[in-house]
């Protein structure tokens, strides 16, 4: 637990250092995520302890959205002023995104998966 948590923090720290050091637009934890994926590929497997810690952290993923979400109280007046564009944009855009992604992916799968299945 302690060891694998340290591994995650070391990768995050390396990601932050690269992001800030090189002035990259990519957030540090994302670079840490890419670095960890690369390390797993080189190692050809996930250490059991790391898998347990990662699963534990990600099980409570949604809890971590809460403190920032409570920040809504700071934005209540903006949300009250702009509720119509925000609501319509979020609902329509989400429906469109699900539909377009699904249609494009199933069309491409029909086009490109035949060779392997045959």
């Amino acid at each position, binding site marked *: 637990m302690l060891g694998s948590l340290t591994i995650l923090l070391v990768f995050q720290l390396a990601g932050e250092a690269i992001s800030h050091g090189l002035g990259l637009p990519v957030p540090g*934890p994302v670079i840490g995520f890419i670095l*960890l994926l690369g390390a797993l590929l080189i190692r050809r497997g996930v250490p059991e302890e790391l898998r347990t810690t990662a699963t534990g952290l990600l099980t409570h993923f*949604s809890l971590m959205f809460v403190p920032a979400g409570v920040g809504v*109280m*700071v*934005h209540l007046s903006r*949300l009250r002023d702009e509720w119509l564009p925000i609501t319509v944009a979020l609902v329509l855009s*989400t429906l469109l995104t699900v539909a377009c*992604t699904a*249609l494009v992916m199933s069309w491409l799968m029909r086009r490109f998966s035949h060779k392997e299945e045959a």
Partner: protein
Amino acid sequence: MTPRLSDIWVYLSTTPLLGLTVTLLVYQGAFWIYKRANFNPLLNPVPISVAVLVLILTVTSTPYQTYFDGAQFVHFLLGPATVALAVPLYPQLGKLRRAVIPVIGALLVGGVVAAGSAVGIAWLLGASNTTLLSIAPKSVTAPIAMGISEKIGGLPSLTAVLVMVTGVIGVISAKYVLNFLKIGDHAVRGFSIGVAAHGMGIARAFQVSEEAGAFAGVAMALTALASSILFPLLLWLFTRY
């Protein structure tokens, strides 16, 4: 009695312990309800916890900053949790390699539609610039969306709220949209929920099947990766020309 009780309150309300403990208690209560309701998407624990906490803070007139001094310990875990997303992605790499063209095509179209339609519709209906920049990464998982929002000049905390609302809309509606379009393939169903509704979509997709969940996870990770590179690049090009 009363003065002593208020002394205790004055002391506790200034320590980080209170914000942290209240966050964990409220979330676990909300999660218990969600579990009892068979994971009904309408009862997602995040919006419920947020609503209860906002109510508590408002009633006790506690400023958000005081609350966040404690809750930041939970907030901090978003960083290592994002790094940890590499772990569930790793065993899916083989499956992913076989569907690489459909996945990349759907990712690019879905990502452009997610950001483009949200910004376009909000702009048409007269939203402010700050709102437009904060709504753009709304389909990306929260920690990354907040990072993008900060980099492109939006409000990260507003983005977090918009991301959550998007997640709730996605998990409620995706099933009906996909059934209407007669999409039966679980890889496609999972992937499109992941592109549109990030982490909340993954949790939902895993309840349908392993395959749907795995592809939702891949979708969230790839959306996060592609957006964190493409958004700032687009903004940079935009401000340059």
